[in-house]
């Protein structure tokens, strides 16, 4: 085999193979980086508001001057909810249920701060919340109450209150460990609960408790007559970039959390951009594969008399093809390894940035990109092997 290689490596063109090597390396790196970057950014979009699934939107009626004066109702009627549910872009509708009882919450942190405030609860159907079921659960009689807080509250404390009093800042993780004292009053009852923060929402500006608790508490702490209709509605959308959504919201004089829609649109645009970048990568890969094929063909052509003589002294076509096949596959493997190395370097650069923007960013695995890389590697290698074999067979059949 050593002798065969010594023979067949004649006429190998270093510039051609360097050209292939670089082109394939660039293509492969772009593809891998594209996939990885998309995965990583998805983790940000999903991670920031993990309990709110991707394509949701919240709408409410506009509070106008007239309704303030007349005390007009901002609640959605049954007919309106059905109308919304019938829209083609809506998958599901869930109503926010407001609490109709008094809530007072306080929390203490080793005596550093002692905040106490009147507040309210709302709930949405459990399906709309992406927190693990065992965390987002309330059974009547439980003393512990899971709560989702708006991210704003945390910012208010960290950048307002703590700043002004030189108190330590707290992260979501630390706050999650803190128990809130919650006093609920109404309908002649007065009970104490322990609130446990299971998540923070930056888009959902309300204090959420499980719907099970809300249903029971609204009956227990207030008279049924006072139970109100929903003033806010959560929608699951099948395509957040749908134009009809904006039109519908405007026509009915509703309001929506624009940022949520914008984020969805950003995700969509990001997806398109990544797809474009990746197709460029794929194109470069195909072109580089073409270069490799041409180089190998040229090599086989230049060495055709040697290959023929090897076949004539008893070497099988498989044995004669093997050196060039190994060479192409070796090059491909080398390209793959280098591309992964480049991917890791590039990723560490942008991950530092991500982590400074989003402290709670959890690094997704690089496994999906690696798997796709390996699949590409196999496809390209198999194509190379088939091409070499066919060229050798052409020499065999020349007779």
């Amino acid at each position: 085999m050593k002798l065969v290689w010594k023979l067949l490596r004649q006429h190998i063109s270093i510039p051609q193979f360097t050209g292939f090597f670089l082109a394939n390396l660039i293509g492969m790196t772009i593809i891998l980086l594209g996939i990885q970057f998309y995965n990583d950014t998805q983790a940000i979009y999903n991670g920031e508001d993990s309990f709110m699934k991707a394509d949701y939107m919240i709408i409410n009626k506009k509070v106008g001057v007239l309704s303030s004066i007349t005390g007009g109702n901002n609640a959605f009627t049954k007919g309106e909810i059905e109308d919304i549910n019938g829209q083609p872009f809506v998958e599901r509708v869930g109503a926010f249920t407001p609490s109709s009882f008094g809530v007072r919450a306080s929390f203490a942190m080793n005596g550093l701060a002692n905040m106490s405030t009147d507040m309210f609860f709302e709930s949405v159907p459990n399906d709309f919340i992406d927190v693990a079921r065992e965390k987002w659960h309330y059974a009547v009689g439980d003393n512990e109450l899971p709560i989702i807080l708006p991210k704003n509250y945390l910012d208010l404390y960290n950048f307002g209150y703590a700043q002004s009093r030189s108190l330590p800042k707290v992260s979501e993780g630390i706050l999650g460990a803190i128990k809130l004292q919650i006093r609920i009053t109404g309908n002649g009852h007065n009970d104490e609960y322990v609130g446990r923060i299971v998540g923070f929402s930056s888009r959902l500006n309300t204090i959420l408790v499980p719907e099970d608790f809300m249903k029971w508490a609204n009956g227990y702490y207030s008279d049924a007559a006072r139970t109100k209709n929903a003033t806010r509605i959560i929608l699951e959308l099948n395509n957040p970039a749908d134009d009809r959504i904006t039109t519908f919201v405007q026509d009915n004089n509703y309001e929506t959390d624009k940022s949520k829609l914008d984020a969805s649109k950003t995700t969509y645009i990001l997806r398109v951009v990544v797809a474009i970048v990746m197709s460029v990568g794929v194109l470069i890969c195909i072109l580089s594969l073409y270069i490799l094929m041409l180089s190998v063909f040229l090599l086989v052509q230049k060495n055709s008399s040697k290959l023929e003589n090897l076949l004539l002294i008893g070497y099988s076509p498989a044995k004669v093809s093997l050196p060039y096949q190994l060479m192409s596959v070796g090059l491909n493997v080398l390209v793959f390894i280098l591309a992964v190395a480049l991917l890791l370097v590039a990723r560490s650069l942008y991950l530092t940035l991500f982590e400074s923007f989003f402290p709670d960013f959890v690094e997704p695995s690089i496994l999906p990109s690696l798997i796709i890389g390996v699949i590409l590697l196999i496809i390209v290698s198999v194509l190379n092997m088939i091409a070499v074999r066919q060229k050798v067979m052409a020499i065999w059949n020349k007779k």
Partner: protein
Amino acid sequence: MVFMQRTDIQSDIWKQDVTFEKEKLYLIEANSGTGKSSLCSFIYGYRNDYLGNILFDTDDIHSYNISKWTDMRKRHIALLWQELRLFPELTAMENVMIKNKLTGFQKKTVINSWFEQLGIDDKKDAKIGQMSYGQQQRVALIRTLCQPFDFVFADEPISHLDDQNAAIMGQILTDEAKRQGAGVITTSIGKHIQLNYDKTFKL
């Protein structure tokens, strides 16, 4: 058997049924252009532009596939090409070893002794491209014998050799064929190895 595009042939082989047997010595004499090398190529499976049938025992070689041909060339038929088909980039010894490593047939000592007998012992590590045609013919012979065979074909093996070297070559060729119980078929356009031929064909 006959060339596809020729009809006016007077020959002991073309348009005849000919049988070669193992353990016998054959000489095919011919003028150039009458198809010695073509005959070798046909039998070796390198060309198939002929009419008729070539049978090994009872197998028609038309039916041989790639692996069968590879096996034939590795173990059953040895051919010393008129154009030698050596690799000019490799040394004499490398040219021999590229075959012997494939078959693993001849011992290194045997190969060395052939190099000595043929007087090219000092050329083992010389590149083929730098050797004379006569020297190359001797290297090609050694390479041809580095495999088991039932028949060995030598296509004008001594065209560039002096009588003494031709005799040594004939000796090595027939000794190895006898050892393997194989048939020998040599061709010539005039000058041929002086051997005790069982049969001579006029092509």
